[in-house]
């Protein structure tokens, strides 16, 4: 028995995993008390496994979604809204476990912050929305350029995208940048 299997058994999540694999969302939803009480990493491990099967390794970055697009979003958006980081990750994982197969689970980094958004990708999220920002949280504008050795002037937006792609490739994920939301 692997550590993961052992952990899921111990936390009462193995049956949830089996139900989710059968597509029995009623049984999954009925297990909500167990999901809410489960160890955070066990929950994350289950959510991550489901995410891998459902939507693969792609992470969709939508950097310019309008308010209307946000309102019309048909995936599952998990707001942070005053939650601790711990509770936020729990909600992301539960959203993935209880979502319809192949649904998008989204976090917004202007709401949750880049740090937690990145961690959320390991707890079942597969979409991040929000304008590209520098480390102080200020949006990086289209026209901002930086001189890069051997490359001449390069837009900061391009550099940021490259940096994000590299960061996420380290954790086995691929970045797909989209200029506007067309996610279902």
């Amino acid at each position, binding site marked *: 028995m692997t*550590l993961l299997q052992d952990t899921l058994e111990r936390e009462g999540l193995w049956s949830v995993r089996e139900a989710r694999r059968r597509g029995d969302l009623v049984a999954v939803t009925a297990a909500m*008390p167990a999901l809410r*009480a489960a*160890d955070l990493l066990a929950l994350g491990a289950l959510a991550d496994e489901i995410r891998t099967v459902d939507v693969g390794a792609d992470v969709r970055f939508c950097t310019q979604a309008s308010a209307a697009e946000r309102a019309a979003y048909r995936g599952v958006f998990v707001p942070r809204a005053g939650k601790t980081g*711990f509770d936020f990750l729990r909600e992301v994982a539960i959203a993935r476990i209880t979502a319809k197969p192949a649904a998008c689970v989204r976090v917004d980094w202007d709401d949750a912050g*880049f*740090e937690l958004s*990145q961690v959320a990708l*390991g707890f079942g999220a597969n979409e991040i929305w929000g304008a590209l920002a520098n480390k102080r949280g200020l949006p990086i504008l289209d026209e901002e350029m930086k001189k890069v050795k051997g490359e001449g002037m390069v837009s900061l937006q391009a550099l940021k995208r490259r*940096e994000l792609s590299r960061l996420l490739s380290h954790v086995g994920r691929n970045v797909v940048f989209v200029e506007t939301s067309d996610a279902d």
Partner: protein
Amino acid sequence: MQTEKPLPTFESVEAKVHRGERLTFDDGITLFREPNLLKVGLLANSVREKRHGDRTYFNKNMRIEVTNVCVASCLFCSFAKLEEHMPGAHTMTTQEAWKELEDRMADPPSEVHVVNGLHPGLPFTYYEELLRGFKRIKPDLHLKCFTAVEIHFFAELYKMSYEEVLTKLRAAGLDSLPGGGAEIFHPEVRTRISNDKATADQYLQIHRVAHKMGMKTNTTMLYGHIETFEHRVDHILRVRALQDETGGFQAFIPLAFHPDGNGMKNLPAPTAVDDLRTVAVSRLMLDNVEHIKAYWVSMTPDVAQIALSYGADDIDGTIVHETIYKAAGSTSPSGLSYDELVRLIREAGRTPIERDTFYNVVKEHAKSALPEAAMKVRDRKQNRHLEVLS
């Protein structure tokens, strides 16, 4: 610094951990490179829970930095000012430092943690009197003061051996040493980021001397700047080797690099994923260090709380007035209240334990305030009855 032979698989490292075998350098690299952070976290958490269950430690401490005047020019530092007259430079009088403590005596800390710049102009008696004054105000106060880098500086400046410095400071009231100043031990990194202060060998020798004198100390690692995973594992193994020899380290504290206002401001800060991975790998590699601390000042309270599921069993303390990370752009608050620390730990599903500096229990709090239904599920799974005590 690269490993050349094929690395062990994660599964083989996992099996070694379950068998209780010591992990090697290559095992550490495998853990740092494993793409699935949750797997590393689960493994580290299993070790953490085997040692400590869900007990999570914190203390009532306060930080005082009496001077930021410092002759060293570490690239990562945003706190130091080279000379006394420079803008932003400050050196407290002993009375000013004591007043910081006196102002807290309505709800006194159990520990004062003093870390300073390397000031070339203060007499040694300043530090001795500083310690004596703190003890006069609160005789049972634990004084965790002066990093090994400061002790080395004192030894050179005042022409004493490490033993003499420590003996005199202990006589004045020093109880233990904090872990700061370790940075990254490997010379490929250390000579580039902090070339003009204690070397790795000197840092470790001071801790060795302190341990042999019966003092407990902590140790740290500053990660997320120019170092590689190999440098981190090398650093951790040097800590483990000294701990095998002396057993004097109480806690290992990974410190996240913050880039604002220092000589490496062009580098990005480490991400939360890197923070969690470093905590987890530290827990797994350091089989002889009892406590791994998620220092909330360096990784933010949010991430530190999550790190309690990735191998950390200590979240540091109330601190009150931290300035070193603040100067480097940390967005963490300067201090957290006692109740906030208890809440952070409880919300992570852990039992908050107020400790003294030596990890003796001062107060054990009830585990959590989970909703009743959730609590019942936990009861059934663990086949035991839980009582909420407070």
